């Protein structure tokens, strides 16, 4: 049978991530702690294992050969367990720790490209003053200063006049909802509020880059989620570039545009949350993501059964519209697709089925609770699994996934949903044989 022509567009759509030059670029950053770190570097280059080196030389390798880059305006999360070197790595970026080797570049359009690792103290201070600020795990607020005075600390160091910096301070405090607390002391605030002050202090300097070292780890779970939402909201408004450290995978998935996973000082995988969830590169990452909640991360286009002749039969063609039927499908639903690749109509036992967009379906859902069996919903490929599941509770028919221009990408029915939830992958994507066990694979295919 002739290959369907739509599949090409699906695969092109997947690779639109890389845009623009990186704002921060780290190349092979290594940080060794000990009396003579440079003496250990050659051993590392010769490929000796970190454990051996640590045992024999009493040096500790904090970060080993870490490379990554941040695109302007994104939240880049470095995730790892405690001791994996993530806090060391973030401190290498603004040189609170001197990297033992490797280079870090900052490419701020207003200042041109600078090699952070080659700056002298004076220039480094300038970078810290104007281009990078930081938020700390334990807040590190100055207890002898009021909330406002904490927030404007960076502006004070920049040499801004009192009136100007206080105006700016109040503006940022409003943004984090604490303006009425401006004249209190940090000790009078709760943990969550203190970290809002920490965030405000980081935002106040107008630095393009915000380094956040486990900023929400010390907070209660509920407050933590609140803060994450707030951060994303503020980020939508201000579009800073954020390097965010966490040991919490759900947090990483919730706020990160890209995630780097660290293990024992090394970055083992970098990718979008979905890539990491669907396609864990090592056993370690796989273990990590095993208990992650996929419903907010995995997108419809990943789990959709692609429109290929492997999965679909062409039943007939009428007026230039091809009618497709799912192979082995129980119900005789036919999907009519025009020569643009768009969904023209859907027929079930020669009846027409109503087709609704996801937005319309949501509106209808708000009004009635009855589950429909005569309506089919289409959604964008970028919708997350949660949205798709909600549609499934609204209608018993499959969900059609389209790309941004409305062309059909694939279809999601029960088997796809089950695979997505249980194995965090699509029928075709992420079939990493070494990680997926045989039993799981069996479950996946036995459902169809």
């Amino acid at each position, binding site marked *: 049978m002739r290959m369907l022509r739509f599949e090409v567009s699906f695969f092109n759509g997947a690779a639109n991530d890389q845009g623009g030059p990186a704002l921060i670029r780290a190349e092979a950053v290594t940080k060794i702690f000990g009396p003579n770190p440079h003496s250990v570097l050659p051993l590392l280059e010769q490929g000796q294992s970190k454990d051996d080196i640590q045992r024999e030389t009493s040096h500790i390798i904090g970060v080993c050969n870490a490379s990554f880059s941040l695109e302007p305006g994104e939240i880049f999360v470095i995730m790892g367990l405690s001791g994996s070197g993530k806090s060391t790595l973030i401190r290498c970026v603004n040189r609170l720790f001197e990297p033992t080797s490797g280079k870090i570049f900052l490419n701020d359009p207003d200042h041109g490209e600078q090699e952070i690792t080659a700056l002298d103290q004076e220039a480094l201070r300038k970078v810290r003053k104007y281009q990078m600020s930081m938020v700390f795990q334990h807040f590190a607020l*100055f207890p002898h200063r009021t909330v406002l005075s904490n927030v404007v600390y960076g502006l004070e160091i920049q040499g801004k006049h009192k009136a100007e910096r206080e105006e700016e301070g109040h503006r940022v405090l409003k943004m984090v909802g604490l303006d009425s607390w401006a004249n209190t002391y940090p000790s009078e605030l709760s943990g969550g509020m203190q970290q809002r002050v920490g965030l405000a202090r980081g935002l106040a300097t107008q630095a393009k880059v915000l380094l956040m070292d486990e900023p929400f780890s010390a907070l209660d779970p509920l407050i933590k989620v609140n803060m994450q939402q707030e951060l994303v909201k503020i980020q939508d408004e201000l579009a800073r570039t954020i390097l965010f450290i966490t040991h919490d995978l759900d947090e990483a998935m919730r706020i990160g545009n890209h995630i780097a996973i660290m293990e024992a000082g090394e970055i083992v995988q970098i990718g979008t949350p979905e890539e990491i969830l669907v396609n864990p590169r090592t056993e370690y990452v796989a273990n990590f993501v095993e208990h992650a909640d996929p419903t907010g991360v995995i997108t419809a286009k990943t789990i959709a059964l692609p429109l290929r002749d492997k999965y679909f039969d062409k039943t007939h063609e009428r007026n230039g519209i091809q009618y497709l039927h799912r192979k082995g499908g129980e119900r005789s639903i036919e999907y009519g697709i025009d020569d643009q690749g768009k969904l023209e109509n859907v027929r079930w036992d020669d009846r027409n089925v109503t087709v609704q967009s996801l937005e319309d379906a949501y509106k209808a859902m708000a009004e009635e609770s009855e589950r429909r069996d005569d309506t089919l919903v289409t959604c964008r490929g970028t919708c997350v699994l949660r949205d798709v599941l909600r549609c499934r509770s609204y209608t018993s028919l499959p969900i059609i996934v389209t790309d941004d221009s409305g062309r059909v990408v694939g279809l999601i029915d029960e088997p796809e949903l089950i695979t997505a939830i249980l194995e965090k992958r699509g029928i075709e994507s992420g079939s990493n044989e070494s990680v997926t066990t045989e039993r799981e694979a069996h479950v996946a295919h036995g459902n169809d």
Partner: protein
Amino acid sequence: MNELMDLLRGVLAAPFDLLDIPVRAWITDIVNWIVSMFRGFFRAYISPPVRSVMETIQWALSSIPPTVFLLAVFLVAWRSASWKVGLFSVIALALIGFMGVWDQMILTLSLITTAVIFSIIIGLPLGILSSRSDLFYTIIRPILDIMQTTPPFVYLVPAVMLFGIGNVPGLIATIIFGMPPVIRLTNLAIRQVQPDLVEAAVAFGSTRREILTKVQFPLAMPTIMAGVNQTIMLSLSMVVIAAIIGAGGLGLEVYAGLERLNIGQAFVGGIGIVLLAMVLDRITQGLGQKGPGAKEKRSK
């Protein structure tokens, strides 16, 4: 063989006859040398500033009428500590006045104020330096130990030889004796400032001076004030001893009383010193607790 045994027996019986370290002669020589070399220098360049500061303070304090002085003490104590401390201070100082040693108290207060001012001027920078350089602190620590543990009588002698007798040599001895706590506690206080706060200051591009003045110093203030408080107490005890070499004030009352076996006079001086010490202690402690760094409730 027998000779060897005899020698051994002799050594065991009197081991210290083996070696004679003539420290007495050395110190005498060293001090004589220092005196002959530097006496002129010390008298020309160290005495005058100390003397003029002391005399200015004494002039200022003694020209205030006692009632105004008491009122001022009450206000200072009230602002820095509480109205209770204020009331206590007024009663204590009034008692001193009623015992007839008001002028001596004023002189003692001037001596102490001068000693403390010089202790802070010299001690604070040394303390800051010690907090930044482990090497410097390693060097200065034994010197501080010597300054603090040498019995105060011992350095009265070189003080007299260098500066003669009177208030100034007494003051110099007092400054040397009283300064170590300022250095030690300044060093300790700055080192104890939470490292994450210093890190935060660094991350925002602060210079070392800004870190010191905006973060470390304000947070170290309560501990530094404790050092100043100790310095005041030590100075007070030293000022009594300094009466031996001619320093005046309440110490002289005690010393004179002892010399003449005038128990009453000695006790009046002693009670005056105790009352003054309590007043100064309460006020400076209050200052330490209400200072800018006193908001040190950890933000965790």
